[in-house]
C-alpha cells in the first residue's frame, strides 16, 4: 500500500516537473526569439544597402505568391457577393452589396486570409530553406568566412516578407472587390452605380483602409519573424527541419488570428462610433 502511494506521488511530481519544464522552455524560446528579432533588425544594414538581396526575396515571397493570392481573392470576393446578396435582398438592401463586400475584405478577410496564405506559401518555404542551410552547415561555413549569416541570409528574407505582405493583402482585397463586382453586378444584376457609390460612401480611408494596411503589415512582421526564427532555430536534421516547417505554419496561423482579434478590438471599437 505504502509503496503504491509513493509511486503515485512520484508520478504526479514527474508530471508537474514536465509541465514546469515545458512552460519554462516556452518562455525561454520567446525570449530567445525576441533577442533574435532585435539582433536581426539591428543588423539589417546589409540587406537594405545591398537591396538586390532583399529584391530576390521579394520575388520569392511576393511575386511567386501572386497567383494563389489573386485567385483566392477573386473567389472569396465572388462567394461574398453570392452569400451577401442572399441575405441582403431579404431586407431589400441588395444595393448595399458593395459596402458588405468592400468592408469585409478591407477590414478583415484581405489581411487575414492573405496572411494565412502567405504563411503557408512563403513562410513555410523560408523556414525550410534556412533550416536546410543550417542542416547542411552552410550557415556555419558563412560564419567561418566572417560573414554574419543573420545579416546575409536571414535579414533579406525578413524584409522581403515584411515588404511583400501588405502589397499582397492590398492585391487580395482589390481582386476580391473585383470578384464581388463580377458576381454582384454582372451576374446578379445589382445596379453598378449604387454598388460603387454606396461603397465609396461607407468605406473610410483612415478607419478602414489604413487600418487594414496596418493589420497586414503587423501580420507580415509576425509571419516572417516566426518563419525565419523557426528556420534558424531548427534542429539541423531532416526531421528537425520538417518539424520546424510545420511549427511555422501552425504558429503563424494562430498568431495571425490572435493578433487580428487584438488589432480589431483596438481599431474598430473605440474610434468608429465616436
Amino acid at each position, binding site marked *: 500500500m505504502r509503496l503504491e502511494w509513493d509511486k503515485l506521488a512520484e508520478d504526479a511530481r514527474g508530471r508537474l516537473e514536465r509541465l514546469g519544464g515545458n512552460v519554462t522552455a516556452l518562455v525561454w524560446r520567446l525570449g530567445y526569439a525576441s533577442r533574435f528579432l532585435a539582433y536581426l533588425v539591428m543588423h539589417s544594414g546589409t540587406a537594405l544597402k545591398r537591396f538586390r538581396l532583399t529584391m530576390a526575396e*521579394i*520575388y520569392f515571397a*511576393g511575386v511567386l505568391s*501572386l497567383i494563389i493570392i489573386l485567385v483566392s481573392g477573386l473567389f472569396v470576393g465572388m462567394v461574398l457577393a453570392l452569400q451577401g446578396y442572399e441575405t441582403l435582398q431579404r431586407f431589400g438592401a441588395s444595393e448595399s452589396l458593395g459596402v458588405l463586400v468592400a468592408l469585409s475584405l478591407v477590414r478583415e478577410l484581405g489581411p487575414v486570409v492573405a496572411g494565412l496564405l502567405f504563411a503557408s506559401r512563403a513562410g513555410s518555404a523560408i523556414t525550410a530553406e534556412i533550416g536546410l542551410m543550417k542542416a547542411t552547415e552552410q550557415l556555419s561555413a558563412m560564419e567561418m568566412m566572417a560573414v554574419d549569416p543573420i545579416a546575409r541570409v536571414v535579414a533579406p528574407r525578413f524584409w522581403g516578407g515584411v515588404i511583400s505582405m501588405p*502589397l499582397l493583402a*492590398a*492585391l487580395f482585397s482589390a481582386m476580391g472587390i473585383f470578384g464581388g463586382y463580377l458576381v454582384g453586378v454582372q451576374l446578379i444584376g445589382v445596379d453598378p452605380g449604387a454598388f*460603387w457609390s454606396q461603397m465609396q460612401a461607407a*468605406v473610410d480611408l483612415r478607419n*478602414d483602409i489604413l487600418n487594414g494596411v496596418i493589420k497586414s503589415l503587423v501580420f507580415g512582421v509576425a509571419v516572417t519573424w516566426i518563419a525565419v526564427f523557426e528556420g534558424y532555430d531548427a534542429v539541423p536534421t531532416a526531421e528537425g527541419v520538417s518539424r520546424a516547417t510545420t511549427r511555422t505554419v501552425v504558429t503563424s496561423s494562430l498568431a495571425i488570428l490572435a493578433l487580428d482579434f487584438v488589432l480589431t478590438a483596438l481599431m474598430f471599437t473605440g474610434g468608429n462610433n465616436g
Partner: protein
Amino acid sequence: MNRSTIDLWVGVFVVAGVGALLFLALKVGNLATFSNAETYQVYAKFNNIGGLKVRAPIKSAGVVVGRVADIRFDNESYEALVAMNLDAGYQFPRDTTAKILTSGILGEQYVGLEAGGDGVMLKSGDRLRLTQSAVVLENLISQFLFNKAAENKEPAAEPKK
C-alpha cells in the same frame, strides 16, 4: 532566372501592389470627397441629435456640402453642440436652418441645411440659431398613442350629456 528578370517581376509586383492600394483608396474609399478641400466651421445646438455621428454628411438640397466635425454636450444649456465643417465653395445665409434627418427609414442620420433669406452669409465660428432635433421613434409612437387615446375618449363622452 537571371537578375534583371527578377528585377522586372519585383517591379511589376510592387507597381501592382501600390496600384491596388491606390484603387482601394480612390475607388473604394472616400478620399476624394472632403479631405483636402478648404472648409469653414459653424456650430449648431440641438435638443437631441438622435444617432448622429462624427463624419456624418451635411446635405443641402440632397447635395453633400460638408461633414460633422465634432459632437459635444453643452453643460450649460444641456443641449448637444455640433461642429460642422462646410466646404468653402458653398456659402449659406445667416438664418439657415439645420435639421437632423434620416436617409430612408432606418438609414444613417445626417444634417440637412435649408437656406434662409438673410443677405449676410455665414462665416467661420458662427452658430446656426434655427435647429430642429432628430425625430426619436419612441416619442413619435407615444405621441401617436396619446392622440389615439384622446380621440377615442371624446366620442364616448358625448352621449352622456
